[in-house]
């Protein structure tokens, strides 16, 4: 009887530790899945893109890729955490304000409307067909795009300088 108590305690501690480690791993995997990735048309010769360039593209400040191709930004509606993060962390502007800003550009004749596509597969298909296209997907959604010819582009996070 005296021996069973330490064994049971060790058993439960072991289970608890295992569950804790597993959940940590899941959370990490989940965060990795939510990581934002840019996909571009294969003809766009870039391998990485920073937040500022993305912001310039989606706010209509930047119209051409460095090689002269016209940029066709494709937007996804806010139905997922990742899209919310994109607005919050990259664009730093809410969807309503972005839409109003884009309307303003259209009324001035400066830009055609932003294309909004819901599903990851449809987004990938459009990016593969449209010259100069760019869209943002979650990393875990890349598995749905294996049969679509797009170029995957890493999004560089802004460098945070800590003053001491």
């Amino acid at each position, binding site marked *: 009887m005296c021996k069973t108590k330490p064994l049971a305690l060790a058993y439960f501690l072991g289970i608890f530790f295992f569950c804790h480690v597993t959940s940590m791993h899941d959370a990490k995997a989940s965060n990795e899945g939510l990581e934002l990735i840019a996909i571009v048309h294969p003809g766009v010769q870039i391998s990485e893109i920073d937040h*500022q360039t993305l912001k310039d593209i989606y706010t209509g400040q930047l119209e051409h890729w460095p090689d002269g191709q016209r940029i066709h930004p494709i937007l996804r509606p806010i139905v997922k955490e990742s899209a919310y993060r994109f607005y919050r962390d990259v664009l730093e502007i809410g969807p309503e304000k972005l*839409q109003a800003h884009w309307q303003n550009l259209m009324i001035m004749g400066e830009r*055609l409307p932003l294309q909004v596509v819901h599903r990851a597969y449809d987004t990938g298909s459009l990016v593969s067909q449209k010259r100069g296209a760019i869209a943002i997907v979650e990393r875990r959604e890349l598995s749905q795009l294996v049969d679509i010819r797009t170029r995957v582009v890493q999004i560089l996070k802004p460098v945070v300088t800590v003053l001491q």
Partner: protein
Amino acid sequence: MRKTIFFAIACSVLHWFLPNTAHAENEAPQLNENAGIYQYLLNQFSGPENESHVYGVIESNLYKTNGSPAGISDAGDTTYSSDPHQFGLPHAHLMLQTSKGDLFNGFLNLNIDDSETIAVKNAWFEIGLSGEMLKLRLGKFYRPFGLFNEVRDSVTSRLSIELPEYLDSHHPIISPTTNVMLHGRINTSGHVLRYAMTTGNDLRAGSQSPFGLDMYYAYNNFLRIGGSYYTSSGNAVAPNDTIGELKESPVQNWMEKDKFNAYGAYMRLKHIGFLLEVEYWGSDHKGQRDVEQIQSLESLAYLNPTQLQRFGLDGIPTTTNDNIPLKANYKVTSYLMRLAYTWETEFGLVTPYITYDRYKNPETIAEIEYGGDSKSGRSEDGGFEKFSFGMILKPIPAIAVKAGYCNNRVKFNNQSVLFSSYILSAAYFWELN
């Protein structure tokens, strides 16, 4: 000769820049070494990337002015009048935009206003000569003068109901549209420098070449600071040479000729929902009045004592008055300050705002139907102040409901007179799928 030189320079610029925009890409139109510039342009036009979109904006409003000074009674007292409320349709636009390949853009903006005439507000096409750094736009378009001239039709996204006084259709500081523009932007890490050089027919009297230069620096969505300069480069004339309602003309229609420069600067700050806009504009006119037009003005329109004195008139219509000063050198000035705050609510975006607008034009008169303005022309010195506040509700980005109240202060009958107006407006941005 001048046109030939301009054409030769334009061709040289085209030839110099276009090969730099070529790019190697499988499906892209290729610049073949043997093909030359014309084949390249042809490829751009015949390529698969052709997009177009049809959309527009409609704005309907309700406007009323109360207690504006109308005249002086025999006893010397100021008399007042109130206009009945008016429903208006200032904006009913049909817009078509198209892009071809990487280089060409086109835009058509038609408006059917209250007078039920179709006005071509914008009709232009554009070619990118060197990416975003250099573009050539031809046709008819709003010049990028100040913060608001280019966005005068953006009624669903502009955070104001009325345009600033320096762009008011009855006394604008410049003509809103022009015909040729070389423009571009340099964009690095959120810092943007935009420039534009414009010329066109504008209001020129003969073969003059009016010139406009506009430039601004912007940092992300936070700061925009810039300035504009415009010169008529010689004599300009009003679009109609008889006394009557005058729209979108900085030159009065009783001027035989008028040489003018307009200049100014502006700043816009946006931060955490706050918006601050400040503008200053000035315009120096060196005009020459038409004696017959001034005489007909005396017989047709009400002129206050200052205006009679300015035009050398005694208030008794005659055709033999020789005291009319022909020289009309004067300065138009305008200031604008606007503060707004936008926050997101469950009903949509809500933006309360306050605006202070000051405008002074000593040459204008009160009656709109004879080429004047109801506020500036009513004031003894041509100056007035407008303090307005209002609220803009945007339940969805395509709809804007606006309500505003204005208090106008003019100098009339040796007094400072206040009169008010209110405006309610609803605007809708529509698109064809």
